[in-house]
C-alpha cells in the first residue's frame, strides 16, 4: 500500500498576486480513485503537478510513504491532456519509453509494448506512426506509456478533455478497468461532473481565489462498475442523479464563498 500525501501544500507562482493553491491537503492511497473538480483557476492542475513533482510547493510538503519528494519519478506516472506523445517514435517505442530509459533490452521492451497495447485495447498497431492516429487512440497510448513504468500512482490532467462524447464514455470504462485490474492510486483532474461521479472513490471539490478544498465527497459508483454493474444502469440510478445535484451545489457554493 503506497500513500501519496499532499500535506498543507501551497503554491505561489512568481509574479502572481495570490497563491494558486493554499494549505491544501489531499491523500491518495493505492486503490483510491481521487478526482479533483472545480471551476477554472482553482489550482487543480497545479496540485496535480505538485503531486507529480513538476511544480515545487512553496509551502507544505508532498510525500510518498512518508518521504518528501522534490522531483518527478516513475512511481508517479503522468497522463497529460494533450497526449504529449513522441512523434519521432512509433507507437511501440512510445509505449515502452519508460523501459528504454531503464536500459531494458529491445526484445523485452517489444514484448511489454504488446502486452500494454492489449490492455488499452489497441492490439496490433505497434508499428504505426503517432500522427496517423485519432485523439482517442493517442490518449490510450499515453495511458499505456504511463502504465509501462508500473507506477504506484497514475496522475491524469483532464485526460479525456479533448475527446468526443462517445470516445470519452468508452475511455471512462477503460480507465475503470485499468484502475480495478492494477493496484494503483489515481489522482485525476476533470471538468466533467458525470465523469467525476462515475470514476471517483472520492471527489475533492476545489474553489478558486486562492485555490483550496471546500469539500470532499465519497463516491462508490466506480466500485459498482468494477463489481460488474453496467454504466447505463449506474447512471439510471436515482442515487446517481442526487449525488450529481449535490456535487454541482458544492462547486457553486465554493464559487460564492
Amino acid at each position, binding site marked *: 500500500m503506497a500513500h501519496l500525501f499532499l500535506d498543507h501544500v501551497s503554491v505561489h507562482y512568481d509574479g502572481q498576486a495570490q497563491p494558486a493553491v493554499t494549505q491544501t491537503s489531499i491523500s491518495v492511497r493505492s486503490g483510491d480513485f481521487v478526482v479533483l473538480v472545480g471551476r477554472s483557476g482553482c489550482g487543480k492542475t497545479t496540485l496535480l503537478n505538485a503531486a507529480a513533482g*513538476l511544480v515545487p510547493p512553496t509551502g507544505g510538503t508532498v510525500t510518498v510513504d512518508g518521504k518528501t519528494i522534490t522531483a518527478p519519478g516513475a512511481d508517479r506516472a503522468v497522463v497529460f491532456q494533450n497526449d504529449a506523445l513522441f*512523434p*519521432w517514435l512509433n507507437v511501440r517505442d512510445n509505449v515502452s519509453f519508460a523501459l528504454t530509459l531503464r536500459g531494458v533490452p529491445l526484445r523485452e521492451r517489444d514484448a511489454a509494448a504488446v502486452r500494454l497495447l492489449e490492455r488499452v485495447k489497441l492490439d496490433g498497431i505497434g508499428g504505426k506512426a503517432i500522427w496517423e492516429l485519432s485523439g482517442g487512440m493517442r490518449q490510450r497510448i499515453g495511458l499505456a506509456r504511463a502504465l509501462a513504468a508500473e507506477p504506484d500512482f497514475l496522475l491524469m490532467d483532464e485526460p479525456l478533455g479533448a475527446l468526443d462524447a462517445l470516445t470519452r464514455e468508452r475511455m471512462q470504462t477503460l480507465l475503470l478497468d485499468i484502475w480495478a485490474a492494477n493496484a494503483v492510486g489515481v489522482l485525476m483532474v476533470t471538468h466533467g461532473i458525470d465523469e467525476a461521479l462515475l470514476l471517483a472513490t472520492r471527489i475533492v471539490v476545489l474553489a478558486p481565489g486562492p485555490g483550496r478544498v471546500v469539500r470532499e465527497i465519497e463516491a462508490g459508483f466506480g466500485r459498482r462498475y468494477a463489481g460488474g454493474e453496467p454504466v447505463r444502469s449506474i447512471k439510471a440510478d436515482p442515487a446517481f442523479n442526487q449525488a450529481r445535484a449535490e456535487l454541482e451545489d458544492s462547486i457553486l457554493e465554493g464559487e460564492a464563498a
Partner: protein
Amino acid sequence: MTLSVEISRDVAVENAAERPGGKRAKPSAKQLARIASALTIAGLLLVWIAAAHFKLVSPVFLPAPSAVLWKFYSVATNGFVDATLWQHLLASLLRVFAALLLALIVAVPAGIAIGVSAIGRGIFDPIIEFIRPIPPLAYLPLVIIWFGIGEPSKILVIAIAMLAPIAISTAAGVKGASLDRINAARALGATRAQVVRHVILPSALPSILTGLRIALGAGWSTLVAAELVAATRGLGFMIQSAAQFLVTDVVIMGIFIIAIVAFILEIGIRRLERMVVPWAGRE
C-alpha cells in the same frame, strides 16, 4: 540564399493553393509564378543570345551561350588548368562537406548548450553573434596567418561561415521542445541527460536540418573565397584562374555549375528532411 528563400515561398504558395480543393479552371498562384519564372528565364536567355549574335557586347565580356556550352563540354572532357571539371567539382564538394561535418560537430552541441542552459547561452551567444555578421573574406587572411595556406585553412573558412546558422537553428529547436513532452519523460523516470538525448534532441532535429540546409548554402557561397589562395583544384579556383586569363566563357560556365550544384544540394536536403523527420509539421 536567394534560391532557398524562393523555394520556401513556392512551397508556402503551393500549400495555400491546394487547400480549397484542387480546381483546374483558373491557373493557381503557383502556376502563375511558374509561368512568370519561365518567361523571365527565356527572356534573359534571348537577350543574351541577341547580344552575342549582333555583337552588341564583345565576346571577351560576354561570350555566346553556345560558346559557354561548348566550354562545358571541353572542360568536362579535356579539363582546365590541369584538372577536369569533375575533379574541380569533387575538390569543392569534399571541402564543403568536410567543413559541414566540422561545423556540425562544433555548432550542434553549442546550440544545445545555448538552448538548455543559461550558462551555455552566456558562453556561446556572444561568440556566435560575433562571428555571424563577419564576411568570410574578412577573416580569411587571419585564418591563413594562423593555419597556413593548406587544405585545413580552406575547410576552416567554409566551416566558420556554417557555424552560426547551425548553432542558431539548433538553439531555436531546443527552445521549441514541448514542455509537456519534457515533463512526460521526467515523470517516466528520465534523468536530465536522458531528457536531452530522448526528447530535446529529437524535438530539435527538424530545426537542426533547416540549419544544415542554410549552412550548406552559406558554405557553398563561401567557396570562391576559400579557394582564393594556393588552391590547385576547385570550382572557385577554376573561375579565378579563368578570370586572370580573361577566359570569360569558363567563368560563366563555372558560375552556372555552382548555381546548379547549390540547387541539387537544396533538393537533396529537402528529400533528407522528409525521410529523417517525417513528423515535422504534422503536429
